[in-house]
């Protein structure tokens, strides 16, 4: 570390507030507002090169940058955890460039950037949840041409997606898709919820919070406003099921939160722990209070 970057005040002067320049922010902000007006529709934007590789949340970080205000309390999670590399580096990035307060507590955060999870703690009005999205187009693996998928959205032509889900049932007896499970937003656009486990899908429906999605490499922004109907695609005889590993967290004992499977010994012994580290901490605290 050189002398310059030790001085926090200097760091802030080196960058514009929250890193991105004002012209870029304006472009992203216009896209975000149109995205909120057309829930689930992917608005193209001219994504910038960020000081991190694609796949590390360059879309999310641009959306966060355009939304941050000095008073914000920022939380960043990666697969539910506050202490993984991706989360730690993005949190530090905004501490350095926007000088915002940070927290690990979901209920204290005003803006949460997430990779692949929705926090277990219920979100509140005016909280913003920014998702990092790798492939924003739910139809992309079924139809590689952008010109075609755009037309399919315009015509609400989603037969192909239903065929895919049907083939799952024909082959496996149930819908195999376990993450990035497609949803229909406000009864109109089929939307990719980003690679969250389908356990989290119901949390998107009618949420009081503002959900924004950024895909940096694919140059798309989309949004799900609060109190919006978000329905996971399914069939009458094969209704959608949110599922998780049928165990209890071996740290906090919770049986209703999403669990990560970890291997704890050389002979392959397994254990399950909450993927949401903040929720796990809160539950552990609650448990120790009960014991007192």
């Amino acid at each position, binding site marked *: 570390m050189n002398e310059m970057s030790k001085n926090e005040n200097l760091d802030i002067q080196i960058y514009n507030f929250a890193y991105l320049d004002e*012209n870029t922010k304006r472009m992203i902000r216009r*896209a975000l507002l149109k995205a*909120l007006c057309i829930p689930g529709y992917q608005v193209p934007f001219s994504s910038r090169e960020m000081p991190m590789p694609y796949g590390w949340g360059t879309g999310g970080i641009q959306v966060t940058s*355009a939304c941050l205000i000095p008073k914000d309390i920022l939380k960043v999670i990666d697969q539910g955890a506050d202490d993984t590399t991706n989360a730690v580096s993005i949190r530090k990035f905004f501490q350095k460039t926007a000088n915002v307060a940070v927290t690990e507590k979901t209920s204290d955060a005003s803006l949460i950037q997430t990779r692949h999870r929705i926090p277990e703690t219920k979100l509140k009005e005016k909280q913003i949840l920014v998702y990092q999205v790798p492939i924003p187009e739910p139809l992309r693996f079924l139809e590689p041409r952008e010109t075609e998928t755009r037309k399919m959205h315009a015509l609400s032509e989603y037969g192909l997606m239903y065929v895919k889900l049907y083939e799952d049932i024909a082959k496996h007896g149930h819908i195999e898709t376990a993450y990035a499970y497609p949803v229909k937003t406000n009864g109109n656009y089929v939307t990719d919820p980003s690679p969250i486990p389908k356990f989290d899908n119901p949390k998107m429906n009618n949420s*009081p919070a*503002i959900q924004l999605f950024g895909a940096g490499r694919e140059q798309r922004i989309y949004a799900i*406003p609060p109190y919006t109907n978000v329905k996971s695609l399914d069939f009458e005889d094969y209704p959608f099921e949110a599922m998780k590993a049928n165990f209890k967290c071996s740290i906090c004992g919770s049986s209703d939160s999403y669990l990560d499977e970890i291997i704890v010994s050389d002979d392959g012994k397994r254990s399950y722990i909450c993927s949401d580290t903040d929720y796990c901490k809160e539950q552990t605290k609650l448990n120790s209070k009960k014991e007192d």
Partner: protein
Amino acid sequence: MENYPFSENSINSSIAFRSLVNATSYPGRTFQINKLNKPSVLSNAAATILITLCDNESNVYLSKEYNTDEVRNWLIFNTGAIISNKKNADFVIGTWKSLLPLNDFKIGVPEYPERSATLIIEETKYKKVKCNIDGPGIKNKLNIDLPNPELFIENNNLYPLGLDFYFTNDLEILSIPRSTKINIIKSEL
């Protein structure tokens, strides 16, 4: 410096944008905007929207009350925006009456519904009709007063195409995006 719209550009514009995000996310609810340096004819809220969102790619239509040297010079100097006609406008500013009929404004195309105009409606001196609104961002149906609600119903029928509205009044802003469904409350006659 005191003549610039915002005293601290990046900070003020971020705070202004958060109000816009909240207003757009929760239609029919009023949100507060801060004061800024602006031409006297514009409200703080309307001027804030223009300064926060417009740049040299934005076509702005000014209705006749707002199409003055003062507004044009202020807007072009601070944002680089292009003064445009109704048909090409991305942002539209005017009183309700001066903007009618709405048919000239762009509503987007099925492949690109976002290529549509954002209308900023200044002043509240229009004939108010009691309405009930519902849709994305609205928890329980809300009662609000709207001018010519039949036009908002028509606009919502175009969904996912359509116009997006911001009502601005001094320091207040309220949004009615295209996704909002409008019911006219029948008066007891």
